């Protein structure tokens, strides 16, 4: 098990990276009234053929040859379902793949979201050839981080120059706080 949902997100997004996606959308949406936390990851990588789609939820299935188990998707599925949530994965090979997980927000077994800022920060800095759109919403209030907009401004200045990396970190932490008012989910 991974102890934080933000680590599950990091893990699932690495599937998108391995599938050669160049645009990955990560949505975290919290609706207190409906008592739900939703994670949705959409990518434009090569996708999963229909015959494999049912197998990816099986921990003893993997396409890689470095080891013979694949736990990323089963972990997220289990984490969602034990809270009364739903897990779905849909793929149109070559067009898009969507991983969707919902969680009972106040369910006792729901793992904390954890350090989502570090997950996004890590992904952005270590994968600069990929564009990311990150959306964080709490009860209708949201902020977006779109690396395409960052690149428009920055040109060829890399994200891991200290000034830019510092900005990304502050942008994430400050805007998170504004959206959730400092509540830890």
């Amino acid at each position, binding site marked *: *098990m*991974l102890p934080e949902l933000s*680590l599950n997100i*990091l*893990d699932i997004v*690495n599937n998108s*990276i*391995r599938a050669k996606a160049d645009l990955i959308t990560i949505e975290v949406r919290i609706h207190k009234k409906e008592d739900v936390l939703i994670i949705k990851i959409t990518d434009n990588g090569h996708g999963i053929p229909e015959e494999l789609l049912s197998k990816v939820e099986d921990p003893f299935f993997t396409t*890689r040859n*470095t*080891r013979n188990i*694949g*736990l*990323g998707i089963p*972990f997220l599925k289990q984490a969602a379902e034990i809270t009364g949530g739903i897990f779905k994965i849909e793929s149109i090979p070559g067009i898009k793949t969507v991983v969707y997980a919902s969680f009972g927000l106040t369910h006792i077994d729901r793992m904390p979201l954890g*350090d989502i800022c*570090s*997950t996004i*920060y*890590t992904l952005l*800095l*270590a*994968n600069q050839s990929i564009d990311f759109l990150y959306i964080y919403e709490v009860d209708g209030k949201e*902020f977006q981080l779109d690396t395409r*907009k*960052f690149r428009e*401004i*920055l*040109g060829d*200045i*890399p994200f*891991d*120059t*200290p*000034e*830019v*990396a*510092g*900005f990304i970190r*502050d*942008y994430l932490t*400050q*805007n998170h706080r*504004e959206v959730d008012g400092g509540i830890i989910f």
Partner: protein
Amino acid sequence: MKSLEELRAIRANMQAQMGLRKEDGNQTRIVVGMATCGIASGARPVLVALSDAVQEKGLKNVTVTQTGCIGLCKYEPIVEVIEPGKEKVTYVKMTPEKALEVLEKHIIRGQIVKEYTISEMIG
């Protein structure tokens, strides 16, 4: 909300500076394993620590990046150091502290930290 205005100012400031990093053959790459096995054993704080330290120390010819599972799950978190013209060095069971030691001794001073390497661990 923090806006992108500040980013414009950063860019204007940076363009005035000389010595922006060039992505050429002289880059040293630090690669952190970031599959389920790596993440579960603590790869995220290792990557953040390395990335922050490279920025702080102004190491312009070093990039920190990530990769998937290389099949040595029980030795994660794994950090590979790939220097141009040299053999790849694989460090295993990393922590942020050990990774910073590797950065200081290996990347900056050129001395491989033998006790943390895979060959030392497996024997």
